[in-house]
């Protein structure tokens, strides 16, 4: 059993580790998923690094922000599980399960969030069939980039609670509580 200061220190370390894992998974994962899903329409790396295209950076930035926010909302309730469990003493197996659960929940939040946002964007593009959004973004149309970026952020706000509930349900299925 630990004293309060020890607990605070350990909780801080655990929280930092969970935040760090979440940041890595959300940022790298969102860039990778975005590049994979839009591989036929746009080459983000080439557009941003070589052509210094602000429009592409803006859309990708909105996507990273949305997915990052989704992942952050997912890990917040997970810390509740940690505070509920520490008084009983944490075993190696439980600790491993905790971190695997964190990673699995984050991956679920990342993949499902990115897919929902991307599918909704696709739907928007189907509705506005007369405009080729990716072509406009590539050619430097900032207005289209702003609309797409804001759409991504607003969609993220709508699905945030649903995705975090799904991820938390998955985490709770590990029966750590």
């Amino acid at each position, binding site marked *: *059993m630990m004293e309060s200061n020890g607990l605070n220190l350990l909780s801080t370390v*655990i929280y930092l580790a969970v935040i760090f894992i979440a940041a890595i998974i959300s940022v790298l994962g969102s860039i990778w998923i975005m590049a994979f899903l839009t591989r036929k329409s746009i080459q983000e790396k080439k557009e941003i690094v070589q052509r210094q295209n602000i429009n592409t950076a803006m859309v990708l930035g909105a996507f990273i922000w949305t997915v990052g926010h989704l992942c952050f909302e997912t890990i917040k309730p997970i810390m*509740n599980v940690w505070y*509920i469990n520490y*008084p009983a003493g944490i075993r190696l197996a439980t600790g491993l399960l905790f971190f695997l659960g964190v990673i699995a929940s984050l991956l679920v939040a990342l993949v499902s969030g990115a897919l929902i946002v991307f599918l909704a964007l696709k739907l928007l593009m189907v509705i506005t069939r007369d405009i080729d959004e990716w072509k406009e973004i590539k050619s430097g149309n900032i207005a289209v980039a702003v609309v797409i970026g804001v759409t991504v952020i607003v969609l993220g706000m709508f699905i945030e609670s649903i995705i975090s509930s799904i991820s938390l349900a998955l985490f709770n299925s590990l029966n750590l*509580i």
Partner: protein
Amino acid sequence: MKKREIRSLGIMLTALLPALVLAEAKPEPINKAHVKPAHGNHLLRTFNWTGADKKAKQVSFSLSKSRIKRELNKFGVPRGQENALLLQKKGFKHIGVSKGVEVYMVNYQEVFLRNLEYFRSLTQILYDAIKPQPPERQLMEFLVFVQAITYKKPPFYYNNKFINSFFPPLICLYEQSGDCDSKSVLLAVFLTSDNNEEKTALLFINHLGLKHSILLVKRMPSPGMSAIFIKGKGYYIPLETSSPGWAPGFVNQRIWSAITSGNFRFSELQ
């Protein structure tokens, strides 16, 4: 993700895991508090629950019949006599007028302060039941105990008296059930009766069809916890007493959204 990144993530996790190996939980007999057996003037109420340390616990409170009678006499208005004067005399307070109707609510602070003295011995019994614990874990253990009490909304009328669906702490123990505000005041009394320094408050939420109340205690939030900053008073962390599985500083997302949108009423107990 590159191989190098995956490797560094793996190294970080391996370094963290030994820190997690704290103590092995061993099966232990039920921790029972020593209480005087109930006799003619007392009623025995036994509670069984699983503590925060995941060990089975049991506590028996010997409640004085005269004290229960006194509490029921001081709180609640006889049916048909719900007038302003009597309501204010029997544990309610006037909070305003809504659509031409006078609105009264339970005077939680009065009920809370009245019960502090009597609960000193009950708190000691509860403390003995959850021993051995470091003192810092008292908040967590007391919260788990109150969460384990059956959630049941008290009736509007109890013993033919208007109580506005609120059980004072002693009646909550006597009935072995309570709702959000009854259980919150019970926990506040347990936390404060033995520690005068403890600062508690009630938070009433009425937002988008959600009516709920939670207890707040003055504490600095630990990493990951939610907290409310009250100007001139400091940080308060929320305690969800209605259902098990919520650690101090954590509440349902819906409740937290209602709090962050400002749709709450803050009522200080001490």
